Structure formats: structure tokens, C-alpha cells
């Protein structure tokens, strides 16, 4: 039995002529301990898919099953990290992470509780900032707190919804490596949603493209059999990396082109450019 299974899941928003089908007949199966990356275009329904799995919304049709049982709501067995860090601004790093610890370990002595909090804060390299509030932290540090809080739930399943998209390239690279390292330690099941093929190549066991919406569905799986830990610069020399990266990028380029051609209501009008010379404003 698969760890997570989606069977013919469809979801639409709106009613009547305004109704937009976001996901259509989507099938997905993830094994326990697998790290899966779903790569999708902006507006294709990535967050809708994540919310369905998290149990925040219900599908119109089809089933979302975790260990064979239908998902009926949110729960601490699934930790989520969003692109917006969603921290409580009036609480320190310790208190924000403490929320996660309290959710799953209700009756801990204050010593044990503190030990657990420190453990997760240390895991994301934030110990020096443990007494700071979110407003005193950089974007990358805030996202680390959010990761620590999700990990503190000790979830069976970690859901990462474009977690690094709002960060600059350097910070993004650092966090990708850190989160992959944390994952390698206990190999919990992870679903990463991203718009970045290279992020998937660096972190995941399998990359699955989400086709452009409306009516998005999943494309073929691309297994990533590259040794871990993976290094961005070293990967570039690996022929297997090159071939796989090109296959994924080619697939995405082609599916988008097909989609554009099909959804274009009217052909481009092909205006004719008149032959004009711009005036030189310096002589005015």
C-alpha cells in the first residue's frame, strides 16, 4: 500500500460560467520515505494540490488517501512549510518552535520541552537567534524557524509548498542543502512543490511535472538516481544529471507550448510594423 495516494482527484472553484477547473483527474502515489518534487507553472494549481493533501480543502471528485485511509482534515502527522513563513510575530523563535513541540508532546517537563526546542532550533542552525522575534530575522532565518516548527511536530509526512521561492539565490541554495541534509538523517516522506527544476534535481528522488492549468494533471515521473549529498557545481559534470535535466526541461517547454497553442482563442493578428525612424531627442 502506498503511503500517500490520490485517485482521480478533481477540484474546481467558482460556479456557473465562472467555474474554473483547477485540477482534473489527478493520480499520484508516493511510497514511504520517498522525497518527491512536483514542478509546476505559476497558476497551475500547485497550492490547491498541497491544500488537498494537507486536508485544508476537500476534492470535488476522487480520493486522497494516507496509508489507505481518507484524509478528512489537517493533522500533526503532516507538517507544512509555506512560502510565507506564517510565524506568530509576537513570539520568539523558541516560542514559535515550542508551539510545534506542545502540539505533539502535551505533557513534557519544562526541561524536556526546552531540550526538544533546542534540538530543532539547532537542527536549522538558529541557536544564536533563539530569543529573537520574527521581525528581527532575515527572510532566510524566518524560513528556518518555519522549518524547525514543522519538524518539531515530528510529522510522518513533510509538505513543503515553494518554501524557498521568496529567498535570494544564495540563501535558497544554503537552505536547499540544509533541508536535504535533515531529510537524509531520518528519511521521512517529503513532498516538495516548486517551480524550479534545479531544486528538484538537487533534493528529490523523483520529479513529477504538473501540467499548465486549467484542468492541470500530473505528467510522467522522472526518477532522479543521483548520489547524495548532491552539489550544484559538481552535478554539472555528471552526464546523468545533464541528460535528466534536459529531459525535464524539454518536457516542460513542450507541454507549455502545446498548452499555449490549444488555449489561444484567436491566432496572433500579425500586425505589420511600419517603417519609421525615431527622432533624435538630443536635437530638440
Amino acid at each position: 500500500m502506498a503511503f500517500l495516494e490520490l485517485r482521480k482527484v478533481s477540484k474546481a472553484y467558482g460556479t456557473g460560467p465562472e467555474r474554473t477547473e483547477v485540477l482534473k483527474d489527478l493520480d499520484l502515489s508516493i511510497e514511504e520515505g520517498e522525497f518527491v518534487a512536483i514542478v509546476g507553472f505559476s497558476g497551475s494549481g500547485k497550492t490547491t494540490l498541497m491544500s488537498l493533501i494537507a486536508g485544508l480543502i476537500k476534492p470535488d471528485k476522487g480520493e486522497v488517501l494516507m496509508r489507505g485511509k481518507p484524509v478528512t482534515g489537517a493533522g500533526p502527522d503532516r507538517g507544512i512549510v509555506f512560502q510565507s513563513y506564517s510565524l506568530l510575530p509576537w513570539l520568539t523563535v523558541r516560542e514559535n518552535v515550542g508551539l510545534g513541540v506542545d502540539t505533539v508532546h502535551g505533557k513534557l517537563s519544562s526541561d524536556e520541552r526546552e531540550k526538544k526546542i533546542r534540538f530543532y532550533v539547532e537542527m536549522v542552525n538558529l541557536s544564536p537567534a533563539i530569543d529573537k522575534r520574527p521581525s528581527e530575522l532575515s527572510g532566510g532565518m524566518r524560513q528556518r524557524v518555519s522549518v524547525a516548527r514543522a519538524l518539531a511536530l515530528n510529522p510522518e509526512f513533510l509538505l513543503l509548498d515553494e518554501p524557498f521561492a521568496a529567498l535570494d539565490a544564495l540563501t535558497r541554495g544554503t537552505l536547499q542543502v540544509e533541508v536535504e541534509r535533515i531529510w537524509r538523517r531520518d528519511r521521512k516522506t517529503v513532498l516538495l512543490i516548486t517551480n524550479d527544476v534545479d531544486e528538484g534535481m538537487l533534493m528529490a528522488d523523483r520529479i513529477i511535472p504538473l501540467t499548465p492549468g486549467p484542468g492541470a494533471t500530473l505528467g510522467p515521473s522522472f526518477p532522479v538516481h543521483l548520489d547524495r549529498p548532491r552539489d550544484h557545481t559538481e552535478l554539472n559534470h555528471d552526464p546523468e544529471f545533464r541528460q535528466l535535466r534536459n529531459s525535464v526541461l524539454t518536457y516542460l517547454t513542450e507541454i507549455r507550448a502545446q498548452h499555449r497553442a490549444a488555449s489561444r482563442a484567436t491566432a496572433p493578428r500579425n500586425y505589420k510594423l511600419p517603417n519609421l525612424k525615431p527622432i533624435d531627442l538630443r536635437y530638440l
Partner: protein
Amino acid sequence: MAGHVELFNLTKIYDPARNKVAVVREFNLDMHEGEFVSLIGHSGCGKSTVLTMVAGLNDVTEGAIVVAKREIAGPGPDRGVVFQSPSLLPWMTAFDNVMLGVQRVFPHATKAERVEVVSYYLDIVGLGSSMQKKPKELSEGMQQRVGIARAFALAPKMLLLDEPFGKLDSLTRMELQDVLLGLLQQNRVTTMMVTHDVDEALLLSDRIVMMTNGPEARVGETLVMPFERPRVRVDVLAHKSYYELRGCMLGFLADQDKRHHVPEKEAEAVGPATVPDLA
């Protein structure tokens, strides 16, 4: 030589009275007409300083910039600029935003001709059915398309792109790179682009100039792209040299990372580099 561009011993010192450290020192670059050159380097290496000097938005401390045989003095519509944020006027439609500049540079054209110019470029960037929308009704990617159409519509001698797709997600970025590639295929404007994105530079450029870390930034190494034009992304990716060149750039950037942390004296010992003569 309508689009020939020459940067000669370009040097920039901010506040020279108090500070002797140059952000950019003796930067030399020759671009032939229709050439696409990318400047790549880490944040703060001075690549945007070079670009804004060519745009005429930033004073030159020493050296000169010659565009189409004339030394530039200040900004002008002969150089179209696209920044990271599209900077559209929010109360105007996409059409009116592009028309604004078109009116200024084609005052002798008929109204019908000006409408045709604006429509032509908006259509080509894929906004044929969204011309009458205001910026807030358009996604960030669509807004940047308007910015690109606006720059091309002025028939500039040169195009300056300062991380034009830096704020977009990676798949939208790829889509806009293809739009830009298509436009340049029809209209080979001399272009200088500043970017962080290695794959973007490879796909679009004829030549890539890798800049050393500032201060005192210079031309570090130059790569010449072997890919034929017209280009298609899938073919460029499959070219036998693609990943070698990508590796060169990633290696250079990683090297600069390390060099960033050595004491200043050692850093100075890195000798000056000049652009190889590629005429």
C-alpha cells in the same frame, strides 16, 4: 554601424572626494552591431553600475561610452532599458504605457502608424488580447512583457536589460526568455544584459563577460557562445558544449565566492584581465 557600442576605460568612483575605491576600474568592452553580451557576477560586483552608466543614469568618473559613434551624455530613447520591476504607470493600460514613449520618438508618424507600432509589439510578446488591461489586472510576468514591448517599440539602437526576469519564478522566467529570444530573432538590437542566471546568459548571449568581485571590478573571463542563431532552447540545451560552458561559469562564480573571503592584499594581486580581441 548604427548599433556599435564601445566602453573605453570605464571607471566609477562613488563620492571621489572622500573615497578612492573604485567600484569598477578600467572596464573595456567592444560590442558589434546586433551583438548580445551578458555581464555575470555576484551581487555587488559592479555589473549594474556598468549598465546604468551605459543607460546614462549614472555618471562616468573616468573613461567614455560611445553608442553608434557618439559619446553618450545622459539617458535617451536610443537606449531602451528594462529593469527587474517593470515600472509601468498604474493608471494607464498596457497599450497607453507603450504608446507614451512611441508618441515621443515618432512625432512625425500618423496616428494609425503609431497604433500599429504599439499593437505590433504587444501582440508579439503575447499580449494581443490584453492590451486594454491595466497593470494591476496583469500578472508580474505579463507586466514584464509590457516592459519589454515598451523598450522595443522605441526602435532603440541599444537595449539594456538589468536582471529583467529576476523577480519571476523560474518557469515564468523561461517563458519570457523565449519571448525575448523571438523578438531579437526578428530585430537584432545590440543588447547588454546583467544577470545572475547562468542558463539565461547561455541561452541568449553571443558573448558572456564574467566580472570579478568588486571593488575594482573588471572583466574576469569572457566566453563566446558557439550556438547558432536562430536559437531554440531545446537545441541549445542539447548542444555538446552547453554543460562545459555552464560548468565554466559555475566554477568562476564559486571561485569568486572563495576569493571574497581572502585578505585585501591578496585580492589585489589578482592581475587585470582584458577582453580578448574578438573582431
